[in-house]
């Protein structure tokens, strides 16, 4: 893994190669391995080692970036010249700020996210884990597919204004699908410490879901009470957080246009962005190296604050919206410059209001409803009402009289997120969850009334 001192040394070389006043380099270093299985067999098994330097230059209100994975002098020089060439022909942008200072890179530390036992995982150990998953499948007369991955990564940002920040971490992930003749079940977990990921437990749950949903029956589409497991919640709500950036408001592409400060969701919805949370992951700084801050995004249903890159905060302060958007300050959520998107919160933590229920308790309290394990192929239908469409998948069940009755054919939904977050009747304890459509979050299971299913598919 790239060390901070190495990054600084390469930065010094890049700085010397450049003819302009400001230079920034984002380094990323990856050692990633993934063992993939299907039909109870490891069928794909890969590893990657890669180090990348992404060089940004800035001068006279112009900026551009060139990225390379070659660190020899000639390649770095070519990248510097490329960035300078792209910047040189631009019209000056009076909104472009000087690069972040060393001070802006300082602040709170996250808990350590590096675990030697995760970094040390071998191909044989991943295969052994997969072997245990396959054993669970065979015990249940099922077929399994999934992944067991492990990685080490490091990120460093160094700039000519004295900023130098560094983060390294490990990650382990297991995702399991269990397939029966007419049904399937799924579970997934991801954590910096491999000890927090239990392949056998995940396999047992996925297998039970596959067994319990066999012979699925058809229920007509309509509005139903649903119990969404955490992965289903995160894959849905993940679609709204790209709108919680200041630039999205300035661009008028956010569903929060004219809605900040209003009670948009139910009283029981409170959402933070908090990279320092013990169940969170990732680096404590943004794409400019600015230290992240905790941001209170939604409080008791009211949208309170947005996230800001440095440049967006400056623009917002001068804008017509400045008195309507809550606190305006760089929050450490900017993407690497230059970019069109500005910033977004990506370390979401739901703060539950107390009275948490387990999924079993939610089911027990449901007269008639649908239990959903996972959602799939979610896309935005309406950007302002935040209507999303998508499918249920890998474990959809009818709940009647407080009990799971049987599996159901999968549904298509068309559901407004705003409406959904006004209809939350119960929540579980917020847990670290992992899906496929959105980034990992700390999010609870939810029981929601009036969830809008519009069609049923054939399986």
């Amino acid at each position, binding site marked *: 893994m790239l060390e901070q001192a190495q990054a600084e040394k390469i930065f010094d070389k890049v700085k010397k190669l450049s003819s302009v006043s400001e230079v920034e380099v984002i380094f990323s270093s990856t050692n990633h391995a993934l063992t993939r299985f299907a039909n109870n067999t490891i069928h794909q098994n890969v590893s990657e080692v890669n180090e990348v330097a992404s060089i940004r230059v800035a001068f006279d209100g112009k900026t551009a970036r060139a990225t*390379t994975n070659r660190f020899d002098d000639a390649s770095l020089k070519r990248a510097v010249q490329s960035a300078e060439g792209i910047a040189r022909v631009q019209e000056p942008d009076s909104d472009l700020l000087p690069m972040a200072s060393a001070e802006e890179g300082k602040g709170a530390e996250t808990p350590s996210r590096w675990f030697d036992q995760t970094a040390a995982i071998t191909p044989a150990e991943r295969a052994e884990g997969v072997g245990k998953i396959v054993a669970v499948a065979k015990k249940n007369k099922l077929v399994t597919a999934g992944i067991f991955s492990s990685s080490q990564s490091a990120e460093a940002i160094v700039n000519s204004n004295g900023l130098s920040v560094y983060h390294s971490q490990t990650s382990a992930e297991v995702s399991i699908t269990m397939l029966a003749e007419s049904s399937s079940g799924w579970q997934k977990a991801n954590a910096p410490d491999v000890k927090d990921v239990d392949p056998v437990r995940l396999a047992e749950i996925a297998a039970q879901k596959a067994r319990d949903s066999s012979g699925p029956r058809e229920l007509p589409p309509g509005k139903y009470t649903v119990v969404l497991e955490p992965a289903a919640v995160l894959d849905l709500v993940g679609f709204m957080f790209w709108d919680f950036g200041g630039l999205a408001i300035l661009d008028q592409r956010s569903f929060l246009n004219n809605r900040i400060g209003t009670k948009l969701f139910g009283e029981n919805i409170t959402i933070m962005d908090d990279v320092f949370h013990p169940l969170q992951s990732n680096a404590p700084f943004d794409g400019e190296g600015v230290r992240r801050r905790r941001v209170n995004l939604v409080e008791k249903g009211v949208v309170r604050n947005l996230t800001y890159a440095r440049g967006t905060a400056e623009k917002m302060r001068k804008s017509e919206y400045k008195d309507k958007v809550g606190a305006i300050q760089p929050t450490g959520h900017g993407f690497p410059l230059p970019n069109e998107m500005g910033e977004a919160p990506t370390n979401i933590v739901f703060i539950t209001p107390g009275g948490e229920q387990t999924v079993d308790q939610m089911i027990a309290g449901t007269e008639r409803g649908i239990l959903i394990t996972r959602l799939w192929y979610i896309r935005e239908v309406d*950007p302002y009402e935040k209507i999303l469409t998508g499918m249920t998948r890998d474990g959809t069940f009818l709940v009647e009289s407080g009990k799971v009755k049987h599996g159901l054919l999968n549904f298509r939904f068309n559901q407004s997120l705003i409406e959904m977050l006004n209809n939350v009747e119960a929540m579980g304890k917020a847990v670290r969850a992992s899906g496929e459509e959105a980034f990992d979050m700390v999010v609870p299971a939810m029981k929601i009334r009036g969830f809008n299913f519009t069609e049923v598919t054939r399986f």
Partner: protein
Amino acid sequence: MSMKQIADWALNTVTQRGAGYADVRIVDHSQRALATKNGKVGHAGSTETLGIGVRVLVNDAWGFASTDDLSREAVDKTAAQALEIAKASASVKEQPVRLAPEPAVKIDWSNPYKIDPFTTSIEQNFDLLTRIDAELLAVRGVTLAESSMHLGRYEQWFYNTDGSDIHQTRVTTGAGFSALVFQGTEIMKRSYPNSFGGQHQNKGYELIDELRLLENARRIGEEAVALHKAERCPEGKMDLILDSSQLGLQIHESIGHPIELDRVLGYEANFAGTSFLTLDKLRKLRYGSDLVNVVADATEQHGPGLGTFAYDDEGVQAQCTPIITNGLFTGYISSRETAHTIGENRSNGTMRAEGWNRIPLVRMTNISILPGEKPLTFEQLVAGTDDGIYMQTNRSWSIDDKRYNFQFGCEIGWEIKGGKLGRMFKNPSYSGITTEFWNSMDAICSRDQWTLWGTPNCGKGQPMQTMGTGHGASPARFRGVKIGTAYKGN
């Protein structure tokens, strides 16, 4: 040091240590990505990545390792790592890997292009994008104008233990723009020539002129504004005409993905899903009406699609495979490993990797619907439609994990009454079941209306790989389609 010498280090290492088969890909990929927003620079960058990937078969199981370091020491280490990984794979195995035979080949190929896009100046690129933005913003009401351009050169050296030596270079160009209008409680969008980045092809910079971007900007801006005054698209069963770009995406999702043989065999069950096209359906399923003829064609003759190449990423020559023939399902897209499962003794050449650090997977090449044989213009197609909706340009897309139930939203719709286009509709959407939908197709425009669209962002695999695919299509008509589901209940 030549690429062949570097590859030989890896191949020698793995064959000496017992690999039954191995291949090596060295990839050098350069890109230029530029974007403007409201006339200012949005994104401005170049990227280059170089590395080597080593794929080995040991004890009938796969291993793959990759590195950005092309030194002798790193390549040897990576090759040894691939072996270790393959041995681990062999410990959890129910079926051995069986590779269809493939002759060794030596070839040097590049896609044809007129203007090397990297010889164009960045000034020239930005000038066009900012002029497009200015045209869009000249339309009163447009609140956000965005334009983008992507230029790429993908150079790959492939070697395997069978003796193949394949050097290929693909030059790609893409561009597009969009106008957003926020008014009241709605955000409306129009894009050109397609949504999500425009049109992309294996072409040089000549594509930019062909797209007539500037000439269409004003109209697109005006349509985005006009959508706010349009009525919402009605709900019900109606006849539907799709423009060729939307039909291209319909092909991608409801034909291209389900015909991937690896999906059918369960390789993607955990992530991208499986397929309703189980093996028993080959040459038996009535996929569409008699007018539906679809091919998977990676050959140069098909056109400059993002799925055009000379050889795939396991050394199999590009081919044209009939997928749907007069409505009958006739073919999957396959690999050397999967071909035998459908009784074939050769792969049809669709294995493609995103880069040096990814393994090749069965991927769409150019999955295209053939145009109608009888002359039929778009105007004639509309004139022959009494009551229906015409939809243009994708806005949202979703399909279940076996590729049965789909729902698409488009940016704009138009009423068809008495053979004429009438009122504009906002928020049009349609949904259905794949085979029912394709069986309802009763007209498709002829060759002069056919466009080979590029989808640059098709995701598949774990770790995720993004791939460019091609989809040729002409406007076509479908009878009795379910319209307007997306807003039902909302």
